[in-house]
């Protein structure tokens, strides 16, 4: 092994982000005392109207990630299975359904929702999941139906989603008994756009060699663009983070000591094994520089008009990564392979997430044909550790890294 330089300094902004997230969750948990309303919303859902109407958005999926990281997924998932939910269902949904009943998890459960906002641009699971929670909490459910764009975005889809954007606002006005302030909506829209643009910039820093942060850091910093999108807090935070990352680039600080190999990650993180995976790859001087997951929260920027947010929202929220055809997803992967100049692709075949995982094998073939880089597929689940065999993953990662090294060694 090459000589291993010392561990690089931690990213300082991490502490700040933890504080911001704590404040956010405290605010959400005490919403009722402060006479504020809470909406549960899917991670891909349009949060901006909620922010504009002073409703606190809460993300069961973000909470699911916390449950996974805290290794509390197995218990909660098993509890859902006792309630009759099949162990083959998405673990975010299982953990949340159980958590609502037992008030478990790292923060003792989420605040009770006053309304539910379900946007199905990520999967069909969220529809079923939010139906269950709407019955359980007996609160109104708004469904924003974003037809999947297998081969493109049609005028029919545009008209349909636009009509629903209006219905969404009408729904919020009805539940809150307040009118939406268009000026405030515009301001939130601009902040959202700005936040996403900055988030893209954060992700772009890893194109630098050595990479100042890794996909594992991105998984962590992602929480803010999900939960606080549309606020000044997110904008300010990402500006600071970018400054810090640029400083690291300037100082030649890479996140993986002696970065030699660069990899792209596909699908959700394996929350309960982040540290282990990160160490495993680092031991091979490999840095996971980017991933297809975190860029989902800025990938639709191209369809967004910051000065006319509400109008462009329909398209931007419909054409996100998980809501397009597998061939278009493959194109996105190829672009990332080029942009980040990676030596290999690691695919997480995620038992929880069918829309993300089915089609991966075709993407794998396309990537192999078009780029010749090695591709690894690891079987796991983002939250439920029962579908993960560490020893098997270890063997496969080691073998995969061997191939990458040999490829590199060849002239």
């Amino acid at each position, binding site marked *: 092994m090459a000589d291993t330089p010392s561990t690089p300094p931690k990213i300082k902004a991490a502490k700040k982000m933890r504080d911001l997230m704590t404040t956010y969750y405290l605010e959400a948990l005490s919403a009722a005392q402060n006479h504020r309303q809470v909406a549960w919303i899917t991670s891909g859902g349009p949060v901006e109207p909620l922010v504009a109407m002073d409703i606190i958005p809460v993300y069961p999926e973000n909470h699911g990630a916390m449950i996974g990281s805290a290794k509390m997924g197995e218990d909660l998932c098993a509890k859902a299975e006792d*309630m*009759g*939910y*099949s162990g*083959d*269902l*998405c673990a975010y*949904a299982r953990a949340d359904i159980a958590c609502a009943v037992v008030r478990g998890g790292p923060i003792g459960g989420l605040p009770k929702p006053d309304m539910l906002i379900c946007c*199905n641009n990520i*999967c*069909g*699971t969220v*529809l*079923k*999941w939010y*139906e*269950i929670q*709407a*019955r359980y909490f007996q609160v109104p*459910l708004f*469904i924003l*139906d974003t*037809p*999947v*764009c*297998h*081969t493109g975005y*049609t005028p*029919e*889809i545009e*008209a*349909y989603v636009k*009509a*629903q954007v209006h*219905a969404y606002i009408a729904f919020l006005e009805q539940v809150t008994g307040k009118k939406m302030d268009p000026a405030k909506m515009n301001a939130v829209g601009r902040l959202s756009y700005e936040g996403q643009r900055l988030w893209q910039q954060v992700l772009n820093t890893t194109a630098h060699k050595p990479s100042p942060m890794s996909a594992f850091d991105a998984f962590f910093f992602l929480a803010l663009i999900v939960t606080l999108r549309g606020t000044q807090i997110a904008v300010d935070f990402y500006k600071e983070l970018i400054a810090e990352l640029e400083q690291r680039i300037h100082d030649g600080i890479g996140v993986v000591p002696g970065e030699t190999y660069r990899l792209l990650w596909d699908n959700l993180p394996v929350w309960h094994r982040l540290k282990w995976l990160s160490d495993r790859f680092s031991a091979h001087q490999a840095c996971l520089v980017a991933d297809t997951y975190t860029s989902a929260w800025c990938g639709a920027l191209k369809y967004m008009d910051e000065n006319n947010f509400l109008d462009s929202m329909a398209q931007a929220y419909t054409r996100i990564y998980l809501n397009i*055809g*597998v*061939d278009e997803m493959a194109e996105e992967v190829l672009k990332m392979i080029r942009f980040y100049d990676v030596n290999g692709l690691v695919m997480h*075949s995620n*038992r929880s997430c*069918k*829309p993300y*995982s*089915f*089609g*991966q*094998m*075709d993407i794998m*073939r396309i990537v192999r044909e078009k780029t010749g880089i090695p591709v690894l597929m690891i079987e796991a689940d983002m939250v439920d550790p029962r579908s993960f065999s560490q020893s098997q993953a270890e063997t496969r990662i080691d073998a995969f890294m061997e191939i990458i090294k040999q490829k590199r060694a060849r002239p």
Partner: protein
Amino acid sequence: MKEIKPFHEAANPLSDTAARIRQTGRKIIGYPCSYAPEELIHAAGCHPMRLFSSGHGIVQAENHLQSYCCSVVRGILEDSLAGRLDFLDGTVFPHTCDSMQRLSDIWRMNGAYAFFADLVLPVTLNTPSSAAYLESVLARFKADLETALEISITDADLAASIALFNRIRTHLSFIHDFYSRHPGLIRGSDMNALIKGAMIMDRDEAVTLLADVAASLRHMPVPDTPVKRVVLAGSVCDTPDLFDTVEAAGGAVVGDDLCTGQRWFDRLVPEDQPPLTALANRYRERVICPSKHTGLTTRADHLISLVNHTRAHGVLFVMLKFCDPHAFDYPYLKECLDAKGIKSMALEMDDGHWNQGQFSTRIETFIHML
């Protein structure tokens, strides 16, 4: 009954049925789900054929779909890749669940047939905007067919096809109702074959034969052996053995909430409306699949009213492993049945395979409990 035989034979082998249809000059368009507008395909001069997994082992589909995908989706893809569907001229994929959604992509990317279409239906079916959208999606599909086949589908063509399919539905509803009121008249596996066969065979042939079956039923002696009346609920049921096992245990399937059952033939397309509006309206009003939404209690309400209507003693859930939409609804549906004192049991089938020993014992126990 000899009229039922062709229905049993429709898929055995499928290629023979397909060959006969092709001789009539019709192109064959396959579809994997009960939300496919067969009337439009038929009005375009093509033959709509429902695709089921033939249940052959998964070999080539392994290269495209992981093992945690339902057997319907994996099986259909396998059949296609293995060349067992080479008689198809095209396929259409109505959007329903996540697995179907990705199957459509994989199918298109590895496409082997001349015609391909996605039908991205709305998921919510009870809002004004979804009504307009649904109709526009059907209009687009019609245009796609017209372009691909270089034809034009007139309102009259469509009205004629709607009338034909409505006759099939009417016959099936009549037969089903008769059979439900007099279980034992024909076998459950026969009823199942009539429905499945009608999704596969030439529709003019189907309508004639169904009329004959309906006529013969009226003259058959009505059995009066008491049976335990069971309702089936789930996605698809392509397992004739299930009916035999239920019957052997002293039960009879008197109603169902299945896409290979009443969900498919219940509700006629209104014949007094503009055809596309009428088709859209049927989709909005028919019994829904769990991948669609018309309200928080629609499915439970329907299931309970079905149990009441058929005077069923219990509900047997037939679930396919890895089928998310149905698995999500199951605990709630069971809870609603429990609250009404209606007994139920769930069978989870893996790979669509029928585990005779294991299932028989459980079904016998269940039926005896009723």
